[in-house]
């Protein structure tokens, strides 16, 4: 799966799960999900579980400290690298 397709899947999940208005002009694949309040601490747990189960990877605590995983694109790029065994 390419990065763009992964990003679209995550974006779709976030829109549905967190009821993000389709008219929200600030929500895109590069917005900081946590700074802009789209996802809170418990939402982050749900998002992590979704990414792990959907893309068949594991995300450890140290991944969360080592890699920037704050935007849809950052998460998508991480998924691709993890699937390829590059991180």
């Amino acid at each position, binding site marked *: 799966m390419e990065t763009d397709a992964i990003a679209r899947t995550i974006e779709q999940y976030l829109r549905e799960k967190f009821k993000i208005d389709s008219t929200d002009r600030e929500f895109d694949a590069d917005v900081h999900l946590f700074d802009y309040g789209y996802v809170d601490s418990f939402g982050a747990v749900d998002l992590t579980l979704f990414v792990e189960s959907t893309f068949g990877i594991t995300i450890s*605590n140290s991944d969360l400290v080592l890699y920037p995983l704050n935007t849809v694109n950052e998460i998508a790029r991480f998924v691709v690298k993890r699937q390829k065994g590059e991180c």
Partner: protein
Amino acid sequence: MPRISIPLTGLNKDFVVQLSYSMAFVSEEVLGHEIDLAGNRLVVDLTSDASRTEVEAKIKQMIERYREGEFGFRSKVYFEQHADIIQNDTWPELLARKWVTSVGDGHVILRGPAARLADVIDQRIQSIFAREFKAEKEIYPATIKCETLDRIHHFTSFPEHVDFVAHLKSDVVALQQFSSRCREIGWSSALHEGQMAEHDYAISPSCCYHCYEGMEGWELSAPGRCITMTVPCHRFESRNQQSMSRLRAFTQRDVVWVGHPKYVLDSRHRADALIVEWAKDWGLDCTYETANDMFFTDDYAVKASFQRQQEAKKELRLTIPQESKTISVFSSNFHSLTFGKAFNIKVEGRTAASACVGWGFERWVYAIFSQFGFDSARWPGGLRRDFTL
């Protein structure tokens, strides 16, 4: 004295300080505790043997809370500075000089140079921070509705801290009875039994809460607004109360931003730089680092580790040499949309974000005398320029 020893197998070492802090609230049967890191065990002194099994279960539940954070436990030091500090008996010296008088558990009066130093700190906040961000001054009551604390989820994060406020029932018989008994035998808490009205207020546990509830339903002009206030705050600290490094009653000034996330985050970032400049100017022995709140609930791991992972809380920590520890004297907190959602505060049609930075005056005063002693001629130049004894 009955004593129990509990293995700390599986405890994340990063959480030792948090566990130690929380032990003060685990049970009223606990007299004291010691964490033996070498032996990997927790040794606890109890009031009686009768409660042993029950207390042991509570402690094990507490240890479980601190096993692992959901998002790791990020520790980042943004700034560190070492100063030529001295060892002195600050607390007894402040008391002997009558610059500080203890008036109850975790309650102090500051006077003379201690009060003047607190005032210098407040003036500096106002001249640097409040001016930089064009903060509007607001004045708040010392108490807050329990309903408000509930709406902002304070009770589900910090139930152990809340000092509730209660008054006698509006009942002439109850009032006369209470008054008569006080005249006859003097006041005691036993006289409250059955005579108190419902507790619908608490003393403010935090400086900035009124700020958000006061803006309920507001639509702000972009990018948002900055507010500053001073509030006497209360947090019950149980056995953690110590000298002036952890008080039950303290005075805090906050600078708060409410508005668009970018405005709030940029302002907070600028405040980070300003506090580091201040620490350099006064030559403080300190670190400015990531931190987390001591959430006292079973969802601690999610909340605290997410807070650290997002660097949502930072603290300026000053060394207290005689207590071999550091204390937080300034904290910087990003709340994301928590308060904007709770009180329906909008900016440009979207829910407003918020952040605050806060200074605890009593801790600043205590830390400065602890680090540099009582001969201000020997204090660092920047500090001496702003304050002399």
